[in-house]
């Protein structure tokens, strides 16, 4: 195992990675922008390096500055967290060229999966179900209209290089498609530097369910434990239901999915492992699927070649520390558990606490005057902030992830409601009130919900 790691990220995920590093006796190095000097993760790391001004392009997206910081601080490995440079194959390759260990899949697998059109075509060839859609970038509106006629309305318009729901919208007919295409293209250029657009059939009553995978390295590194053999297998460690979304971005997740029965689950886990094996995937990754509730069927959406924001729910039900497995795999050592004997126990929820109001979900930066985290049986809080910190407009609005584990879904819901009640934040507006309403809503409690749940809760039919 390497003895030191630099975390190329900020906020709750930097803190999360540092926590596991400390438990394993690995020295941690944080990097921070001028806006983040006071955040808890900077103080908790064994060392911290300032890397630039607040703007992400000058700090957390500045690959050369991060690699220089790693070398300066004597870090042997780089963990990218999620977002920023986590899915950038050029950065991963630059890390390896600098003689450092990249904690993630190979730059080749990242590149294959990073482009949604390429990933879709690759999965279709490998026999993983994909939805009807375009197989090459849609160049202009005329091509988009022609493609939509073939696929059939409604269609979903997406940026091929995109993520986080940015630039994504559904179109019910040609007029809406024209507007959606223009928006998607301008956002794709602006946020991802790549104007390629794809169209897919839009499923009306869909759930968004993803599978956690863990690719074990092929070949004989380490291997002192006979059970945890390094053999190129891709393990599927259960699913997460991410159907509670606003603006196509996740707000709450749970596992197991209340909308997926045993037969469908078995097919989805097998398809996710197949997807990983197709690109010889190594390390932690997530295969996202769209589940058609009425047809009890699923299609491949995309693959995230990194640790996922909502990974804690999988950790809570399996008892596996996914960051620890990432470290072990990057170091060429066997994973810490018996790959054939992963058991899932109980039910887990994650509620994303955002600095945004609970009605319109508009951002609300500001100084945090008061911050009290809930505690109790089954409660885990992964927080990026504390009292006295300033939430700035430069980064995403995630303040903390409130996670709960219960013996069953009913107990998890009960514990979640009490924990939301006990979470006190003053200063920036937060969506804690929204979470209280979500947990009390008949539709969420029934488990029979889909990706339009939040719109229905807010009395808004638009999607």
């Amino acid at each position: 195992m390497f003895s030191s790691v630099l975390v190329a990220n900020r906020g709750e995920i930097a803190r999360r990675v540092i926590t596991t590093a400390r438990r394993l006796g690995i020295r941690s190095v944080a990097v921070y922008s001028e806006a983040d000097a006071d955040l808890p993760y900077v103080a908790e790391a064994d060392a911290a390096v300032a890397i630039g001004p607040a703007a992400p392009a000058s700090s957390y997206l500045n690959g050369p500055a991060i690699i220089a910081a790693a070398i300066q601080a004597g870090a042997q490995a780089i963990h990218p967290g999620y977002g920023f440079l986590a899915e950038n194959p050029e950065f991963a390759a630059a890390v390896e060229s600098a003689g450092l260990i990249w904690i993630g899949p190979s730059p080749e697998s990242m590149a294959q999966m990073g482009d949604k059109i390429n990933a879709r075509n690759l999965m279709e060839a490998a026999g993983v179900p994909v939805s009807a859609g375009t197989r090459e970038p849609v160049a202009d509106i005329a091509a988009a209209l022609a493609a939509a006629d073939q696929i059939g309305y409604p269609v979903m318009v997406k940026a091929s290089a995109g993520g986080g729901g940015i630039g994504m919208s559904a179109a019910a007919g040609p007029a809406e498609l024209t507007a959606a295409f223009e928006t998607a293209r301008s956002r794709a250029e602006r946020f991802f530097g790549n104007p390629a657009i794809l169209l897919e059939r839009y499923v009306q009553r869909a759930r968004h369910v993803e599978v956690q995978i863990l690719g074990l390295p092929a070949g004989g590194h380490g291997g002192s434990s006979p059970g945890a053999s390094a053999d190129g297998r891709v393990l599927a460690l259960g699913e997460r239901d991410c159907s509670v979304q606003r603006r196509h971005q996740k707000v709450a997740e749970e596992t197991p999915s209340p909308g997926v029965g045993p037969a469908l689950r078995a097919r989805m886990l097998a398809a996710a492992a197949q997807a990983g094996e197709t690109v010889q995937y190594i390390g932690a990754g997530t295969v996202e699927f769209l589940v058609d509730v009425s047809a009890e069927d699923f299609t491949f959406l995309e693959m995230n070649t990194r640790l996922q924001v909502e990974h804690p729910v999988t950790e809570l039900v399996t008892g596996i520390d996914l960051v620890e497995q990432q470290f072990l795999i990057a170091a060429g050592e066997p994973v810490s558990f018996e790959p054939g004997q992963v058991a899932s126990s109980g039910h887990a929820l994650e509620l994303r606490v955002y600095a945004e109001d609970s009605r319109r979900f508009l951002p609300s930066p500001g100084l945090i005057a008061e911050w009290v985290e809930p505690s109790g049986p089954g409660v885990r809080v992964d927080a990026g902030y504390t009292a006295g910190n300033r939430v700035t407009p430069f980064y995403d609005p995630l303040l903390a992830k409130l996670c709960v584990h219960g013996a069953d879904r009913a107990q998890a819901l009960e514990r979640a409601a009490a924990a939301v009640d006990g979470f006190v934040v003053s200063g920036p507006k937060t969506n804690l009130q929204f979470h209280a309403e979500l947990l009390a809503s008949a539709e969420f409690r029934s488990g029979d919900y889909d990706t339009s749940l939040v719109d229905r809760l807010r009395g808004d039919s638009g999607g």
Partner: protein
Amino acid sequence: MAEVRAEMVANVWKVVAAEGETVADGDTLVILESMKMEIPVLAEDAGTLTRLAVAEGDLVQEGDLIAVIE
């Protein structure tokens, strides 16, 4: 006269309207960006845009003046 003010701390991403222009109620004046979200700032009245107090790249605080419509 109507003053348009920022609802939150944000960066000015795009200035859409120009000083001296005639605007209608609901026209987009500028687009702010905060926490990876674009927030259009709309005219809340029809009239002449007599003052545009921000430029692209500016950081505005909650309550800062963005524009004046007369």
